[in-house]
């Protein structure tokens, strides 16, 4: 019976006390971190479905966002190609037009400037318009000199370009300042709407993820009601009981994030070929950009946060209701 004595003896000096609270805390965290993953692994089908729902819900807005970014990259290129045409007054001769060109080149907003003299304008018009012979009849050249301006990259936002055009219009030599940019402006506005739309969709789907995780954890808590009562009776703290559920939420979020990342990458790689061919048809070497590492990690972080938040809500609502009776 000496064995009995040593194991059940009350107050016996005992070198192997429990770990300090902090060590025990960390140890339990590490243990639950892995065991909750193991638990998911042991019921692969149902958990995979939950994770897939999270993945799809997150992949949808994130994928749209990546496409929008691509669109912005493309339109950014177009924006750089915006050009302003300044038509001089008829009284301005070619020499004065060239002089004006020299002056304007010094403006910081202007990347490049090309002066089309009246004679050049005439020959270009003759060549392109098909009215060549008719124009021969005219005694005087009816076309003004044109200054074609490309604003530089840093000053190419619609507002800045509009400001530049206004400034140039004030010049005494200029009759008409024309900007072929309205369609770019419209595109920009549409993209803004798209961005707003994506934010709304993302918010709704984030809510869906929250509810999915919350509901899954709630069912998990209910199915383990007896277990929770038992461990409460043998001295488990609420934090101890809460922990496996929170880590389950963490894993749902983490795996859901990974799945949505994969889905986006796969979808983009499916689109990449046709997009490149289309770009080729427009004479562009544009290729579809995939998600960069940073936004991928951001996606993962958001996903994990949603998983944790969902389980936190479920645990907060349902765990305190379960008390031994």
């Amino acid at each position: 019976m000496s064995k009995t004595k040593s194991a059940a003896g009350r107050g016996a000096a005992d070198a192997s006390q429990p770990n300090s609270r902090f060590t025990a805390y960390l140890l339990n965290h590490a243990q639950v971190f892995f065991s909750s993953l193991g638990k998911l692994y042991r019921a692969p089908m149902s958990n995979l479905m939950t994770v897939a729902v999270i993945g799809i819900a997150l992949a949808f807005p994130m994928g749209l966002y990546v496409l929008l970014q691509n669109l912005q990259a493309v339109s950014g290129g177009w924006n750089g190609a915006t050009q302003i045409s300044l038509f001089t007054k008829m009284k301005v001769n070619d020499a004065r037009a060239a002089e004006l060109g020299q002056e304007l080149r010094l403006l910081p907003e202007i990347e490049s400037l090309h002066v089309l003299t009246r004679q050049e304008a005439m020959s270009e018009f003759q060549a392109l318009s098909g009215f060549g012979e008719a124009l021969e009849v005219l005694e005087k050249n009816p076309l003004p000199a044109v200054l074609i301006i490309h604003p530089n990259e840093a000053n190419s936002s619609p507002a800045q370009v509009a400001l530049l055009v206004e400034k140039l219009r004030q010049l005494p030599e200029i009759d008409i300042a024309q900007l072929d940019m309205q369609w770019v402006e419209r595109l920009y506005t549409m993209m803004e709407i798209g961005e707003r739309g994506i934010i709304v969709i993302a918010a709704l789907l984030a809510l869906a993820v929250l509810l999915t995780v919350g509901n899954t954890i709630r069912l998990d808590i209910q199915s383990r009601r007896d277990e929770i009562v038992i461990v409460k009776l043998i001295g488990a703290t609420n934090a101890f009981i809460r922990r496996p559920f929170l880590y389950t939420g963490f894993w749902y979020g983490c795996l859901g994030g990974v799945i949505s990342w994969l889905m986006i990458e796969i979808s983009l790689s499916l689109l990449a070929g046709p997009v490149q061919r289309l770009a080729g048809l427009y004479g562009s070497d544009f290729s579809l950009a995939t998600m960069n590492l940073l936004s991928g990690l951001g996606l993962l972080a958001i996903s994990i946060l949603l998983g944790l938040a969902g389980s936190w809500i479920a645990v907060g609502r349902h765990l305190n209701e379960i008390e031994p009776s």
Partner: protein
Amino acid sequence: MIRFQNLFKRYPGGHDALSDVCFDLNDGEMAFLTGHSGAGKSTLLKIISLIERPTRGQALLNNVNLAKIGKRRIPYMRRQIGIIFQDHQLLFDRSVFDNVALPLVIAGYRHQEIGRRVRASLDKVGLLDKEKQNPVTLSGGEQQRVGIARAVVNKPPLLLADEPTGNLDPELSWEIMRLFENFNQVGVTVLIASHDLELIKRMDHRILTLNQGRMFEQTSWELD
């Protein structure tokens, strides 16, 4: 160890489970709590294990007034009590070893220490060779012994048992009671709620009887 002073427990609805209960259970004592079903045995154990709160009067555990224990301190108080249930309350999704280890995991013991203590505890109840089995595969008596091993594994100074032999035949019941006596002999305070009067008579311990919520002490020859 336990002291009840003029303790009343009235459940919502007006049922008086305990009326003016006074008793002391000293350190290292072993006692039976008996009475008909509905006499208040379970309520008394629930008050000690902080599942229920008294309506009036005082309950002290180790000189700590249980009414003063806040919600956050309840788990730590419960770790000083080993509770044994009639239906043993084992978890069937894990092995015997893991069931017995649970209180130690909760208290944050080291891995090696858990193994050592769980085996010592299983050895005491004679189930060392069953540690890897699922409790579902064990007989009723064996399951109850696993429950006892779990209750004593973190060496609580107090053991509470609620009808621990309720589902067992007389011979197994006797073995279980002898087990409790063994723990008591090494200094553990033991309080066993039971209505198995034959068994209680055979053992020479204090007998606390509850009748309609009131407590009185009996000797074994007064029992009938």
